């Protein structure tokens, strides 16, 4: 059975398959990236690699002034980015039977594969590949 990490962006819950995650860490010290778009918070030194931290809430336009306390680092081979999130909740087993379709009128539909009902908590299942594809064209 697949496992997903449940994390929070502002007041919404999101789920990300743990196969898409290399590491979860506290918000590190960030350094200034010149001419970066507003949703790039800065760069972190991740084991000697330069990794930009993306303000996921701002990028998705969900919550612009949310606090970011944790970063979720993508595994190597993807775009080398880390996602800044409000908080992480826990890693849970994921049962596809508990999936619900997402609202069709949300503007972030392309990033949300479907909704997952985790013990009554509505979790947006996040589609990381769409994000990575989109970053390639920016």
């Amino acid at each position: 059975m697949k496992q997903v990490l449940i994390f929070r962006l502002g007041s919404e819950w999101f789920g990300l398959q743990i196969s898409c995650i290399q590491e979860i860490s506290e918000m590190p010290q960030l350094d200034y990236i010149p001419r970066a778009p507003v949703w790039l918070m800065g760069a972190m030194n991740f084991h000697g690699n330069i990794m930009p931290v993306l303000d996921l809430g701002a990028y998705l336009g969900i919550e612009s002034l949310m606090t970011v306390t944790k970063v979720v680092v993508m595994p190597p081979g993807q775009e080398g980015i880390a996602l800044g999130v409000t908080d992480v909740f826990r890693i849970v087993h994921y049962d596809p039977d508990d999936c619900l379709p997402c609202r069709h009128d949300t503007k972030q539909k392309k990033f949300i594969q479907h909704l997952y009902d985790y013990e009554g908590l509505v979790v947006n299942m996040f589609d990381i590949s769409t994000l990575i594809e989109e970053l390639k064209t920016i």
Partner: protein
Amino acid sequence: MGSTMDMSKYHDLFLTETGEHLRRMSRLTLALEKEPADRNGIDALFREAHSIKGMAASMGFDATARLAHHLEDLLAGFRDAGTVPAQGVDLLLSGVDLLEGLLADITAGVAERDVSILIAAPIEAAVAVAVSVEEDRSDSPIEPVTELLQRVQVVIDLTADALAPSARALLILNALGSAGQVEACKPTIAEIQQGFPVRQLSVWLKSHCSEEEISRTLHGMADIKQVSFQLDRRKSSLRDDDSRTVRVRTALFDQFINLTGELITNRYMLQSAARAGDWQEIKEGLSLLTRLVGDLHHHVLQVRMTPLESITANLPRLVRDHCRKTGKTVNLEISGEGLELDRTILEALSDPLVHMVRNAVDHAIEKQGTISIKAWREKDMAMIEIADDGRGIDPEMIRGKLVERGLLKESQAAELSKRKLLQWICHPGFSSRDTVSETSGRGVGMDVVKSALESLGGMLEIDSEVGVGTRFLLKAPLIVAIIKILLVECAGREVGLPITRVLRILDIEKKKIQLSGGEPLLLIDDEHVPLYSLNHLLWLPEQVEASSTVHLVICESQGSKIGLMVDRLSGQREAFIKALPSPLNRLQGVSGATIKGDGRILFIVDPNALFYDEKTFIEPEMEAG
């Protein structure tokens, strides 16, 4: 599992080595064309073919082995005859071409192409084959080295009343696919398929085609309001980093082993000193460690050094073939090929070099002439000069074109010195339009050459005299990894500027800055230097506190001096530059980053690229007017 790993290791080695043998074969054959009776040359060529045969046979690449064997036979025949006939040279060259094709097949992992046509033909008939093989080459999809692949961004505006814009967008993408490889588009294909209301489609295309040819593929399509082009300045990632291999001299490798040994000893020494709490001993250990790490670093960089020859070896062949096509006689002289540069730099220089030599043959030289390539070292920079004795570039012609195309006002153009005028052939707005051969025969893709060089921290100088010839001087750093940077601060943020870009730094009184049309400028040695706020260029807030002095960094950009106003100058340092990972590598004006001693990251800003971006807004305005 283990055995496949091993095979793939030999596979890469085979590809690299065969490539090297083929380059030498091509060069030796060209030498034989000039001196057909050179016995040593024939022998050397024989040995190269023999090596390829042996390696290919042991790797199981039968067609390659058979062809190499056939070339061996031919060469044995020539050796017995004591000379290589003129057709023999053609035949050998087409053999080399075919081997290159086979190598491309092997690299791509497809079946080796048919070689029987060349092998089966007897010498006289083979010449006919040779010619046909040669002609084939021009439109064969695999012409690995010589094409300058460009990435262009095509922007297509759809009319507002397009009925099914997303369907139209898909058709456009399809059509563009015939002109090159679509790398990305915005909106994305997935978005288009979901019925995203497309009004404007941006497509990043990797293509050999000129803009005109690309436009032509869209010709006659309904719903298209306008097609425009932007040269894509994103760093090209044409080469796959992971598959590259490096060969290391055994002596150098032994030094690594020795150094490792010393480091291990050093570690024990430090450990026991720490246990004993002997500070003197720890201090000594640390200073030894500093030296060892320095040594190690130096040696690691050496591994990356490669002679210039690796990218110039193909040029004699290129020139020969080009001469054949155009009926010109061009003598190519190359010297200083032993100069060693970092691989990354060499690879980035390879396409521009080919391009410039080809340009010189095609346009600069009228009937016959000489192209000379000289390379030498000046301090930390490699100098590569490409000179021809062709028709030269007329600066007045450039002046006329600049006004004609609306790139400059007549009064502005009238003031430009010759040196500045010549720099304009590297301007994308000037060179990407296809009227170049009538002006000077230069400029096609010179902007690409220039930007390739600048992204390495290098520079391009152009000098030309009508009727005497043109000289391009490429200045590139020998080692890309370490550069000197100037640290500056803007709005409390620190960035580095490559010292190679900086002409001087100045502190001036604020009142010395004058305004022209609201824009600040400064008079330095009778020259008007436009000033720009780096805060503004970096999209940072301006410093609020008023101070009476202004810190200026004077840089050269597009042949002119510019001044960058910064909040603070905070020193110089040497920095080990790391290439930026995607998506950071697409930030305009940011060329790299370095990790400082305390682990913090410092980004390097290329003032030229910042400035370039700032200036591009001129172009659309001009086009609209």
